[in-house]
């Protein structure tokens, strides 16, 4: 029995409280996580995306603290309810918690040293989130069915003799505990075993044939992507230039292109390694449009009529800064910013504006979309 402010909570009330708080926290994390994962939802509340990131992280931290404090209660509950199904459910929730917390902390810290661990953490985080949803629905469904007597609980085997307790059952509580504990140990052992392996033949082959590792998560601030129509699309370059110009997509295709391989890093923590880019060097446009001496800054506009980014002209004259139109040997698709986007290999992805259709040379540097909304670093350099 617990005592608080003169009122005595019984064990059941405490268990119910822990269960409800756990459910609410999971719900908050799933919903905020959904806004970070599903492109349409991300777009829906784009202005508040950063708040959702913070909310998600904060919920994760609260969840971790909650689990630590609730652990003795959970163990107590497990001892009182010795059905193997209950044990399975408790162990599964703890396993989810362990996976989310450990991978979430790694993603939150987001170290750049080992890309594979970051990608693995992201995968674990995603797969656990996807798995919990049907489990929760099944859990609620079972509770509902029992509440309205649509199903009967298997009679509890009451015995104080531990040898007899699980007699006659296919799976015992001890089996479940052993399976979960063993699985966690096996997973850690598998990771450590792999971590200490010598150089693999696959990696030696990959050294010679650059292979993409990781995957893109698509970000947009509008719900629908701008539509590219080849005949009516133009890239306009104006502002403080001697020769304001407009290029059709077919005209751009006649410009000399460069192809190179470079990693793509998102400021939110994920990366795609060894991405093959093709496009026109930004500096090749300089001789054509001839910016005036006052045009020291560049503002780029997206066809979504909302997103923009700003740069120092010198930043865009760095090597391999391109107006990209191909990725991995294929034309950009809508989600990737078709038909044209900037790619700056030394800056985070938010500086590589998608659906680019206007470049303006300006005297003063303003803020880009995320710099204005969320105080992102104006230059967005990786280091």
């Amino acid at each position, binding site marked *: 029995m617990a005592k608080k402010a003169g009122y005595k909570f019984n064990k059941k009330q405490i268990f119910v409280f822990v269960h409800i708080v756990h459910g609410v926290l999971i719900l908050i994390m799933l919903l905020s996580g959904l806004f970070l994962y599903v492109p349409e939802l991300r777009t829906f509340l784009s202005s508040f995306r950063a708040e959702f990131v913070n909310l998600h992280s904060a919920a994760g931290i609260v969840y971790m603290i909650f689990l630590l404090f609730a652990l003795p209660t959970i163990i107590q509950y497990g001892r009182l309810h010795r059905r193997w199904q209950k044990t399975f459910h408790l162990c599964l929730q703890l396993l989810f918690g362990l996976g989310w917390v450990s991978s979430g902390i790694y993603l939150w810290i987001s170290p750049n040293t*080992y*890309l594979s661990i970051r990608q693995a953490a992201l995968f674990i985080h995603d797969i656990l989130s996807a798995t919990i949803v049907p489990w929760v629905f099944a859990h609620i469904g079972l509770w509902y069915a029992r509440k309205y007597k649509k199903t009967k609980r298997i009679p509890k085997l009451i015995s104080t003799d531990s040898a007899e307790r699980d007699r006659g059952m296919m799976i015992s509580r001890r089996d479940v505990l052993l399976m979960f504990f063993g699985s966690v140990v096996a*997973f850690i052992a598998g*990771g450590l075993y*792999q*971590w200490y392996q010598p*150089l693999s033949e696959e990696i030696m082959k990959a*050294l010679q044939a650059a292979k993409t590792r990781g995957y893109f998560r698509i970000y947009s601030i509008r719900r629908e992507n701008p539509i590219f129509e080849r005949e009516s699309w133009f890239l306009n370059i104006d502002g403080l230039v001697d020769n304001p110009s407009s290029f059709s997509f077919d005209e751009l295709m006649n410009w000399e292109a460069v192809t190179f391989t470079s990693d793509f890093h998102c400021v939110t923590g994920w990366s795609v390694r060894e991405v093959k880019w093709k496009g026109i060097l930004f500096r090749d446009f300089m001789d054509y449009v001839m910016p005036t001496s006052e045009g020291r800054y560049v503002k780029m506009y997206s066809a979504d009529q909302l997103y923009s980014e700003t740069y120092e002209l010198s930043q865009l004259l760095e*090597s391999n800064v391109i107006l990209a139109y191909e990725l991995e040997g294929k034309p950009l698709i809508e989600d990737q910013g078709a038909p044209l986007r900037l790619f700056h290999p*030394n800056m985070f992805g938010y500086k590589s504006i998608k659906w680019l259709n206007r470049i303006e040379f300006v005297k003063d540097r303003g803020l880009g979309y995320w710099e204005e909304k969320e105080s992102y670093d104006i230059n967005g350099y990786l280091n």
Partner: protein
Amino acid sequence: MAFIVVWGAFFLSATLLFSSRANEDLLSLQKVMKETDTWESYESSQRLYLEGEEEIRITSLFHQEPYLEHVVSQVRLTEDEDFKFEVYFNPEVIYIHTLNTSQWNKTDYTNSIAGELEGMKEPMVFWNRMLNHAQKIRKEQIADGEDHYILTLNPFRDEVHGFQFNEIASAQMEAWVTNKPNRLNKIMMVMHLKPNILRRYNQITYTTSFSNINKAHEIELPEDAQEAKAIN
């Protein structure tokens, strides 16, 4: 039995999900080495030692935009005699200045000699090839945010600046990389050769070091280069 299957599945999934530290370290090193291609300018020094005695020294000054590179090569001929020449790489023309005789020559990139000379100005081509021979890799963090990579290489045959690397018994490659930003400062290889009575050395050391990255000194083509004779 069921336990073993479940545990095995978890063990296997972890091995598939994660990579080895050695693989990751090698990829990190390759990435840092590749990034030298994106440097706007740098100064480099390549040295080749036989049993600790300097045999070849090549220093270069590189600018990407506009493309210009100045390379000075010094090769030991005898105990007290060196062969020295310098090369200026322009986008269209290569100027060669033999320092021993003060003679200037020039050629374009269609001449076969251009291919020979170009090997001097791209030190990383050789080092990138060497990664393919890696057998083991170890990464250590040393003071001041610097990483030290140590690679044991499988025996190989290769060549750098006309110098053949044959009969290698063992080779160790080391690289020093500073963090934030990740930059390759120096790379070195020590090769131990199989004993051979016809050869006066059994150890070769080859190093490449970089400095003044993205802030290299300007390159000026000497006026005498205008008098250079074309090589046919």
